[in-house]
């Protein structure tokens, strides 16, 4: 018999090379030994500015959220020990769903145990084998996996290209093979380059062809729009967006995810969506901290203002250094293009040792085979933090992004 791990030989080799370049440290095995605040941790014994945690609102150490989590732990215990369909819902899950529906101004909301499962559960719940799902080429893996789980016909269109979607919808109609419904999946902010979907243009296509529209606001929920309802609010098209997906592991600072919508049959998803049905529900403390955080996001719009200010400051600072960025419009995701893979790994490692943690993103996880040093900005960063990040990128990255054979 062939060794089951034989197929991973190339990946193992690539991983070994990364370890060689960083003296045994890498992004996957990195350990945060102690947290000092939402934006500071001790890594390798050094105090490090965190600029790669997706902690957009800096809410993870909010005293009210922590208090809510403690109270839930004491009142409801450490875990739910089962799924909602078999073992029942806790009042916290219900309250969380109601709070989210209110926040989003939607009739229905379902909470999932992780953000990954929210996409799996919504996409595979909505689409079945006779339906067609159209997905953006740069979609997150959870969207691809949700599509695969659905068994639907899958059509991929060019990233952020409404005309390309239009063309593919026309092809499908012409093929005469169409049987069921159509679902188009977009993201509010794309996680690698930080660019927004041109939502208004996609809605023009929707008016021409007709389809169900799902927007994954994972990186934009709580972040974009006057009230934090995401890109759908910022673009002024909430009425045209049929389903909203989001996660609690970014702006909400917990773990879990949700799907929301106004369809009169929405609640049936609880009985057909396998990623909802066959997994344990979120722990009481996680549901309670998410609930408290969603209330904070509604009550404290100044967090969004602060995040916008910080994002604009970092974006402008990087621009001034002449760095090549993933997107011209500032968002809390700011990706800096690195040189080749070894060069980018070396820069990531040098930044870490100089005191700033960012994400390293490599193909095939990135669009167009680019290597990225990806930063995520937090409302909890100070101006001094942002300026320090810019300074370190100036020392480590600026002027050195031409591809090199080896470092």
């Amino acid at each position: 018999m062939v060794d089951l791990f034989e197929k991973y030989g190339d990946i193992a080799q690539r991983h070994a090379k990364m370890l060689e370049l960083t003296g045994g440290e890498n992004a996957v095995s990195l350990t945060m030994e102690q947290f000092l605040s939402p934006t500071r941790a001790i890594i390798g014994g050094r105090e490090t500015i965190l600029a790669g945690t997706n902690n957009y609102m800096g809410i993870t150490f909010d005293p009210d959220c922590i208090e809510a989590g403690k109270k839930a732990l004491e009142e409801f215990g450490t875990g739910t020990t089962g799924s909602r369909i078999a073992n029942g819902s806790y009042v916290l899950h219900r309250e969380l769903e109601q709070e989210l529906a209110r926040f989003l101004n939607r009739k229905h909301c379902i909470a999932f145990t992780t953000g990954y499962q929210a996409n799996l559960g919504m996409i595979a719940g909505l689409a079945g084998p006779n339906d067609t799902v159209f997905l953006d080429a740069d979609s997150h893996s959870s969207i691809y996996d949700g599509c695969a789980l659905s068994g639907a016909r899958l059509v991929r269109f060019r990233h952020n290209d409404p005309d390309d979607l239009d063309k593919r919808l026309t092809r499908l109609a012409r093929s005469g093979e169409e049987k069921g419904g159509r679902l188009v999946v977009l993201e509010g902010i794309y996680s690698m380059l930080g660019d927004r979907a041109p939502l208004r243009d996609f809605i023009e296509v929707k008016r021409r062809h007709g389809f169900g529209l799902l927007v994954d606001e994972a990186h934009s929920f709580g972040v974009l729009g006057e009230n934090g309802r995401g890109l759908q609010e910022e673009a002024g098209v909430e009425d045209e967006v049929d389903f909203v997906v989001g996660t609690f592991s970014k702006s909400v600072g917990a773990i879990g995810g949700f799907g929301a919508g106004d369809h009169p049959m929405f609640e049936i998803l609880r009985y057909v969506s396998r990623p909802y049905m066959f997994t344990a529900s979120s722990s009481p403390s996680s549901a309670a901290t998410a609930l408290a955080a969603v209330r904070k996001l509604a009550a404290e719009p100044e967090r969004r203002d602060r995040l916008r200010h910080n994002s604009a400051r970092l974006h402008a600072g990087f621009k001034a250094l002449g760095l090549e960025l993933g997107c011209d419009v500032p968002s809390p995701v700011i990706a800096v293009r690195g040189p080749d893979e070894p060069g980018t790994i070396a820069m990531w490692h040098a930044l870490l040792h100089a005191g700033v943690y960012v994400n390293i993103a490599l193909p095939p996880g990135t669009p167009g085979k680019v290597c990225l040093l990806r930063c995520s900005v937090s409302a909890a960063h100070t101006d001094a933090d942002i300026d320090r990040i810019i300074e370190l990128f100036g020392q480590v990255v600026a002027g050195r992004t031409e591809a090199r054979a080896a470092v």
Partner: protein
Amino acid sequence: MAESPEQIFSELCRLIEPFNSKGITVTLDTDIAADLNIDSVAVMDFVMEIEDRFDIDIPLNLLAETHTMRDLVGVVQQRMGQGS
């Protein structure tokens, strides 16, 4: 519109060039992912180029059983037989 399997194969060879970074000689028996060592995203990008070149729709879920260039020529022929 009717292109022969040879013409389709030669077009596919042209379209795969940008993804064939190791310059491996492509035959009908070449396993696209394994022999050319290209990742899943590159395979999907390649398929998108094929869709646009032939103005056809190749749903990704149809590709599970498509491994070699010969399989792919078959898929293109089959898809060109639909609609239009």
